[in-house]
């Protein structure tokens, strides 16, 4: 294992997140089993006090989890000069079989943690614990994933040794590449451009409609989820080509480097921010008429809709700006 400060920070935060998650998960199970708000039993009153503590702990815990995705990618990127063959994070993640599965798991955990934070935010504003069950059900889904993530992280970094020769991003995200990287690269560029701008247009239109009229939330949330996937694939398929101004370089990680003004960080932050806010809007929809949520969820959803639209708009504007300002012109 490399005793790099960022590696140690990642391992420590992951252990902390997993340990706190285990603690919260244990009480989550007790809450799911024994919660009965109408009861005044000693156990119920103890659980009510405990839920307050767990919500606070997990708010910080999962916020750290959100940040750790960016730290993981940053760490992989910053380690690339140490490995023969690696030109960016893509090569470093390919050092062993755990790097890419861990990245995908961290992305999934990011979305789940973000949605949990939104549910928790809404629940804590209600005096009658309106989302307590769904919140802890989701937490108990997240906790095992956090534990798997910690194991994968330990396995990945324990296998990272400086004498390993790895592949560069050109081969991992080239037309001959196999696996997810190859599949993303092979996506046809013109239909992807059409899909990207179409799904963003649908998301903006449904977002504005939902913001103004308060209905059509499912359409907006579904569109935001689809936009997240399509925009994520579009980065590899065509957006990065315009940024690198190279028709064959599809790496989604070189965007994070200084040569490209660290533009990847803002693009991924807006993409994930919009994705979480959009999915969170949908996650709140079934509870709009639950107890005190009647007056809490609608304004919260409006704010989340604004965040989604603002994030995706920024992402789309950066994409459009890069497409128009690039020296590269793709002909179909």
């Amino acid at each position: 294992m490399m005793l790099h400060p960022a590696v140690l920070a990642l391992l420590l935060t992951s252990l902390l997140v997993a340990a706190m998650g285990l603690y919260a998960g244990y009480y989550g199970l007790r809450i799911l089993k024994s919660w009965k708000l109408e009861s005044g039993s000693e156990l119920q009153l103890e659980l009510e006090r405990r839920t307050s503590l767990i919500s606070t702990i997990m708010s910080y815990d999962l916020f750290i989890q959100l940040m750790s995705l960016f730290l993981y990618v940053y760490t992989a990127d910053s380690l690339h000069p140490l490995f023969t063959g690696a030109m960016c994070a893509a090569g470093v993640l390919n050092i062993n079989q755990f790097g890419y599965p861990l990245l995908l798991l961290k992305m999934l955990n990011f979305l789940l943690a973000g949605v949990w934070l939104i549910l928790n935010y809404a629940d804590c504003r209600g005096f009658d614990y309106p989302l307590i069950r769904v919140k802890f059900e989701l937490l108990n889904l997240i906790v095992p994933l956090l534990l798997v993530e910690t194991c994968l992280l330990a396995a990945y970094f324990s296998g990272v040794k400086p004498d390993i020769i790895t592949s560069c991003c050109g081969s991992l995200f080239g037309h001959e590449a196999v696996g997810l990287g190859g599949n993303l690269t092979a996506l046809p560029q013109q239909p992807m451009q059409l899909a990207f701008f179409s799904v963003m247009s649908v998301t903006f239109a449904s977002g504005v409609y939902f913001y103004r009229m308060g209905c059509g939330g499912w359409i907006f949330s579904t569109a935001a989820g689809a936009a997240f996937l399509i925009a994520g694939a579009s980065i590899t398929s065509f957006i990065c080509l315009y940024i690198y101004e190279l028709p064959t370089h599809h790496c989604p990680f070189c965007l994070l480097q200084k040569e490209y003004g660290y533009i990847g960080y803002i693009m991924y932050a807006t993409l994930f921010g919009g994705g979480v806010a959009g999915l969170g809007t949908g996650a709140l929809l079934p509870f709009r008429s639950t107890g005190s949520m009647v007056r809490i969820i609608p304004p919260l959803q409006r704010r989340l809709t604004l965040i989604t639209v603002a994030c995706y708009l920024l992402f789309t504007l950066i994409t459009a700006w890069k497409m128009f300002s690039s020296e590269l012109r793709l002909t179909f």
Partner: protein
Amino acid sequence: MIELSSLSKVFNDGRSNRFVAVDDVSLVIMPRQLTVLKGPSGSGKTTLLSIIGCMARPTSGRIYLRDIPAALPYRRDDSENVEITSLQERFLTEIRRRTFGFIFQQFNLIKGISVLENVMLPAYPTGEARSAFRTRALDLLGQFGMERHAGQKVELLSGGELQRTAIVRALINDPAIIIADEPTAHLDSKLSLEFMERVEQLKSNGTTVIIASHDPLVYDAASVDSLVEMRNGKVVGSRSRQ
């Protein structure tokens, strides 16, 4: 009404010095009435009063506020019943501030500042304009014959004046319920009777008053509507004077 359902408070649970301060108390306190909790020292009056006033949490049991305006955000309407023991601290703060007014045994006025500032203190966190609650404070001080002491520091007040200042401070946020814990403990008989007159005045204005006391001048007063007798944390008797 305030409905207490199987309320218990245990200190040091699981230890050798475990102490049951309130033991399975169920009680109904009617609105716009004066209820007195009577009992010897250590009978659980103050603990029960603290739990009703959201200053302490019970170990088990529930308290319902029915048809009492409780300062709770996002309620569907004010007629909705509120259960206060399950509320998280952020909600309790607002309820303590607006629904309850407290008169303490030692009055707990802050020395070094004026009577008016003492009275206005609970109103500052509400966000109301200072000029509005200052006018209200002066008006209340006038009603209790304290207007000429408004600028005076509290350490210069007599016992009766301290007591009236404490009452005015409890009323500043126009609470639905006044809670007083042994309010006459440090007063002579004349001032105690004067206090009970003030309480009757509050009651006639529609305020619910709950007093914990073992002073006969309080629990034998004609204005008492309901008397609850406590011993060893339990309610051993209660009677209503209707």
